[in-house]
């Protein structure tokens, strides 16, 4: 047994032991927040409680979380420029794949739109829709289709910050009409939340896609390519 394994086993045992102790010995829970959420739901502008928590009651968390996502993309940009990349990977040039994508791509956009719209009343919302958009982008990318150097344009950066900017603008708009930051007037809550979600979906989707796109490209993994990279 090397010391590292022993150390890991001890730490793991301690953690599980402590968690077990905490779960078995925990006091009678007093959780009333779900009732509070249910009571205020009608004033939140959406009827799905999770969306209400994410985009109204605790919207500041969501705002900062978009910042976290954006930050990861910024670092990817920064490192990409520090070191120049080799030639781009070619992608899987496959006719069947192209045919499948021709069908799948619009379908994915459609489902993303549905998820966004559904988020107000039932499961779904900007994150899931954004992830689907990103997946659609990755699919295109795998098929060798790429938006020509779009990543390095002002437009790309504008799409990235769009969600955060709209979120901030809506928050400030709420302040302009006399509320707190991000305090939607109940009558306007629905359209505000939908607008924010739409912007977030675009930015989240593009950010997740960029994290894939901005990673250093590698040559196609075949023998020839490997030899090229060795030299």
């Amino acid at each position, binding site marked *: 047994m090397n010391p590292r394994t022993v150390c890991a086993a001890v730490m793991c045992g301690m953690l599980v032991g402590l968690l077990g102790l905490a779960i078995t010995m925990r006091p009678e829970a007093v959780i009333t927040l779900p009732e509070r959420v249910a009571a205020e739901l009608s004033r939140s502008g959406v009827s799905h409680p999770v969306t209400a928590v994410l985009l109204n009651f605790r919207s500041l968390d969501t705002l900062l979380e978009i910042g976290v996502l954006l930050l990861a993309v910024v670092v990817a940009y920064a490192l990409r420029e520090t070191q120049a990349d080799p030639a781009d990977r070619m992608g899987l040039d496959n006719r069947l794949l192209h045919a499948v994508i021709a069908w799948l791509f619009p379908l994915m956009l459609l489902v993303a739109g549905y998820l966004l719209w559904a988020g107000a009343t039932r499961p779904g919302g900007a994150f899931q829709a954004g992830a689907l958009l990103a997946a659609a982008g990755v699919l295109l990318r795998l098929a060798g289709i790429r938006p020509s150097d779009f990543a390095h344009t002002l437009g790309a950066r504008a799409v990235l910050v769009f969600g955060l900017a709209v979120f901030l603008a809506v928050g400030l708009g709420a302040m302009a009409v006399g509320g707190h930051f991000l305090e939607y007037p109940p009558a306007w809550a629905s359209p505000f939340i939908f607008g924010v979600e739409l912007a977030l979906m675009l930015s989240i989707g593009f950010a997740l896609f960029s994290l*894939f796109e901005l990673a250093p490209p590698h040559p196609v993994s075949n023998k020839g390519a*490997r030899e090229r990279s060795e030299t």
Partner: protein
Amino acid sequence: MLWLDALLAVTLLITAVLALASPSLFRAVVLFIVFGLLMALVWVRLEAPDIALAEAAIGAGLTGVLLLDTLGYLHGQRDVADEEEGAG
């Protein structure tokens, strides 16, 4: 239904162990994606469909793609078999 959940929990744990212990990194990543999909099932059982959707799309899907892409990058650059020895 509790026995079904217990079965799911056990499968989840076994997948996690396999993903962490697999000698092949590629197999570990694939098992991790399976783990993510099982997590999505768990979220459905916990009446959290929002998380289930996000877990399947982001947790398993995108993280999996990023991991696989990185794996391809490692192998595309050079043979890392010798590096992997002893890391398992």
